């Protein structure tokens, strides 16, 4: 059975068509994923400025927004609320911006895993999870500190072992 899924997938594309992040909430096989990305790149990257942020595609709608060299795209059902999705994109971007401090494409390339962590705090199951930027920032900071503490411990242990085996 299929129930309405709000967002079917999220794709971040660079202007050159390079994929910077993908997240699929509806099941797509690897083959389908590649095909979707190819089709959407052709459809979205060729659109000029000053056009609307919606593209109709195979009975779905893709809501996209361009930030500098990056296109953030989310695919929804044709009868869903486009503007709401558009602002989820912006919400995501604002959080990235706050996290990286004026985010740019390079941040997302070298820290693509961070982008995934953040996205997971905003969307689950293709549904919007958290409207508060503050809450998301707090949760991500907590995760980071958990990782860092663990890493420090690990490195101090390896130092100790290193010392001991000298």
């Amino acid at each position, binding site marked *: *059975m*299929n*129930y*309405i*899924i*709000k967002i079917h997938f999220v794709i971040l594309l660079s202007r050159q068509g*390079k*994929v910077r*992040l*993908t*997240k*699929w*909430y509806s*099941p797509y096989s690897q083959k389908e994923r590649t095909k979707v990305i190819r089709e959407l790149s052709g459809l979205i990257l060729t659109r*000029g400025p*000053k*056009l*609307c942020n*919606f593209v*109709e595609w*195979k*009975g779905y709608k893709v809501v996209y927004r361009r930030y500098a060299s990056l296109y953030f795209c989310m695919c929804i*059902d*044709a*009868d869903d*609320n*486009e*503007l*709401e999705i*558009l*602002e989820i994109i*912006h*919400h995501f971007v604002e959080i990235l911006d706050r996290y990286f401090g004026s985010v740019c494409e390079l941040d997302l390339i*070298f*820290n*693509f*895993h*961070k982008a*995934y962590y953040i996205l997971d705090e905003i969307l*689950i*199951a293709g*549904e*919007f*999870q*958290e*409207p*508060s*930027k*503050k*809450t998301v920032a707090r*949760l991500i900071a*907590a995760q*980071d500190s*958990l*990782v*860092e503490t*663990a*890493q420090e411990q*690990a*490195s101090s242990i390896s130092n100790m072992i290193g010392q001991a085996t000298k």
Partner: protein
Amino acid sequence: MALLGMRGLSVFISDVRNCQNKEQERLRIDKELGNIRTRFKNEKGLTPNEKKKYVWKMLYIYMLGYDVDFGHMEALSLISAPKYPEKQVGYIVTSCLLNESHEFLRMVINTVRNDIIGRNETFQCLALTMVGNIGGKEFAESLAPDVQRLLISSSCRPLVRKKAALCLLRLYRKNPDVVNIDGWSDRMSQLLDERDLGVLTSVMSLFVALVSNNNEAYWNCLPKCAKILERLARNQDIPQEYTYYGIPSPWLQVKTMKALQYFPTVEDPNTRRALFEVLQRILMGTDVVKNVNKNNASHAVLFEALALVMHLDAEKEMMSQCVALLGKFIAVREPNIRYLGLENMTRMLLITDVQDLIKRHQAQIVTSLKDPDISIRRRALDLLYGMCDVTNAKDIVEELLQYLSTADFVMREELALKAAILAEKFAPDLSWYVDVILQLIDKAGDFVSDDIWYRVVQFVTNNEDLQPYAAAKAREYLDKPALHETMVKVSAYILGEYSHLLARRPGCNPKEIFTIINEKLPTVSKPTVAILLSTYAKILMHTEPSDPELQEQIWAIFRKYESYIDVEIQQRAVEYFVLSRKGAALADVLAEMPKFPERQSALLKKAEDAEVDTAEQSAIKLRSQQQTSNALVVTDQQPVNGPLPINQLGLVRIPSQKMEASSHNQGLTKENGAVSKVDPEPAPSADFLGDLLGPLAIEGPPAATVSAEQNMISGLEATPNAADALALATVGDQSNSVQPIVNIAERFHALCLKDSGVLYEDPYMQIGIKSEWRAHHGHLVLFLGNKNTSPLLSVRAVILPPTHLKVELSLVPETIPPRAQVQCPLEVVNLRASRDIAVLDFSYKFGTTVVSVKLRLPAVLNKFLQPKSVSAEEFFPQWKSLSGPPLKLQEVVRVVKPMSLPEMTNLFTSLHLGVIPGLDTNSNNLVSCTGFYSESTRAMLCLIRVETDPSDRTQLRITIASGDPTLTFELKEFIKEHLINIPTPTPAPAPSPALAAAALQPQSPITRAGYTDPGVMLAGLL
């Protein structure tokens, strides 16, 4: 910081970025994949940190679009790592690399469950997130109770609970049984009291899913939703962090209004009043501001409010406000708002009250057709298509035609199709319709599908007044220098049939017509050559007195193509050549095409199919729901002939009964004559008297014949039995605006002959059927499928069984969830022989529309038959022992659907009447034997003999014998129904075109199912 200890990953990413071209990139990636593979093989040497690094590299490579077909185990194994950093990577990478159907996922269910029920909050979050993103059925079954516990636990913090809510939503989508409705309506109501807006947002998503599936169970939550909306819209007690550009969480507002739209209506007057106050405030209080984000957010709320207003059936005044607002939107500069204005206006068309208001904005909408943005152009096209009716058809269609020359290639076909449909549907007069289609072909021939020009041919054929006009127009186009091939086809066809009507006009004598058409011959493709040959033959026939010079010219062409490589063309050339030398016979064979049976436009169907791939369906839905516009029904409409179930386009002239009957007979005699002339073999002598048992010749006493014939004719045109009476009642009952998109009668008749298929389909739902028959028992399953993204409500199905059937239908659920299919088994027991038919009385609600249909169930007599093969020694004693009425009945049947013996054998076989070859010494006869099963008769042997006349396939004599008088009678009548032409809902003309086709093209692969479709028929003829 971020990449602490993962320098290798950044180095790799830089390397990939520095690659000059795709080839280099591939080399670098292959090298890395090799490296990772070796490292994973030798797992012992890997530190957790290294493993993490490689798994991230895999994800990066995967993201770039390369196949990563190994290492999934390593990613999964990180999930069971004890420390957070590894676990986190394991969960995230797994949920990106694998999808829900990946078999590996099964292996981690236990680990995931331990994390969910464990005490570590951060682990709970990771596990819930992954399950929420890729959890499948198995996860649903094993984890749902634990996830539910977290959601309702008072000790869990919001960060866990909001994830639990969405995780449960995912599991519910995979298996709705995981949420038990009884307990959940109260629980949900409590959850909606949640103060934390993060949790409430997630809970609301879960609620939307639950309520979309079963709104009745959650009535108690409706007032709470209204309260939440009110609180948000009035910005009461909303923490600062939950406002977005000053707007209290627009997402939660939108979601709450979505939830409200799943309740069929709001009855409580207080709630309703409060709700409308809020909506009014949103509609009127939303201003356009400079800040884009604020604008988007407030308009997201506004458009949802609009949807809710439409759903709640607001007062007309409020609706007019909405239209006025949308009218403003479609004229603003901001493209998003313009797009959404058009989109929502299309949705508003479904509300009849405001259609006239929308029409006032036509000029602006037409302007949008020239918008630089294709998304907006599509919306404008859809809206124009939806709002078109008799009053504005001329303007709109002309706009579409104008736009056609400049439109994007991707839109042209859709545009051409839509223009054709509108022209057909709303034409103020038929000549305008012909003009439009010809212009369409002229301007965008490449995008005009065959269906479109077949359709215009059908109209011209069926409307005599139109024929000279169409012929004159076709002649005019032929003067144009560069002509699209489709135009050549349609002109040639029309001139072949009707150019003689123009004979006195200048430039229109047969020779001139021939010359101008023949100029095109060298440049056209094979299918067109075939059409041109037919046209030449027709021209020859119409040339009175014959013109030897023209004849020589045409014969020369026929001779030239006699040895042409294409079989179809070759055959036509040979046949036309021979035929045209037969003089007067030519006129019989090439007589004017008979009228086409009236039926649904194939175009509409096509538009519906095509639409799935292009845009949203609202306008199309609207179109297919609308009743026929009567603008084009020209003359002589006699409803007696059958308001056909799918008669959406009441365009074809329905001739009066009398005309129908007489032309029908004429057609038959004429064509029979032709057949016998073409047939090179001498007609076999009609050896009816030498028949082995019955002394009665097929030429019965004249009086009897006449009455039989009258019976047949009245049978054709009035309603011959209860079943067809019902078919009519069905249509009459359907006061609803939703029309089926399949021909119900055809579906029923098809299902009488086979055991599974579609019984009914409309824009919202489809009913399929599958049946098994054993002796006098039948086991049927009805498949009720919801085609939409919203549920069908108040579903009701009742069987009205005739007295001879015992029918038990299992419980039919009241709601069919979006895109879901439910199966309802149905048991049938046959008590005795009867041709009465069980009726399925079916209704459902979609939004505010109530759809109710009565469908005949294919639990018919022949389903309880089983063919028997018997030897002559068994057959004859039986046959003789059953002597005379009422056990043995004989009847001469006339106006039989002409079919060859093999065809009849096929028909009998599909009716479960086993044909036994060789039993009758006369090869024109057919003997069949079958067992009938009912509770009263048990197994009863039935013997049938059919005697046919090869020189007149329209009559035959049938003798039926069985041990039960009712059975004998009912079976005889039943077989008659299938032999004469009742099954097709279209009255008379079907057999004649079929025969004409057969006469022209003996090997034409037209199937019986096919020839009822005028498109196919025409294609076969051309």
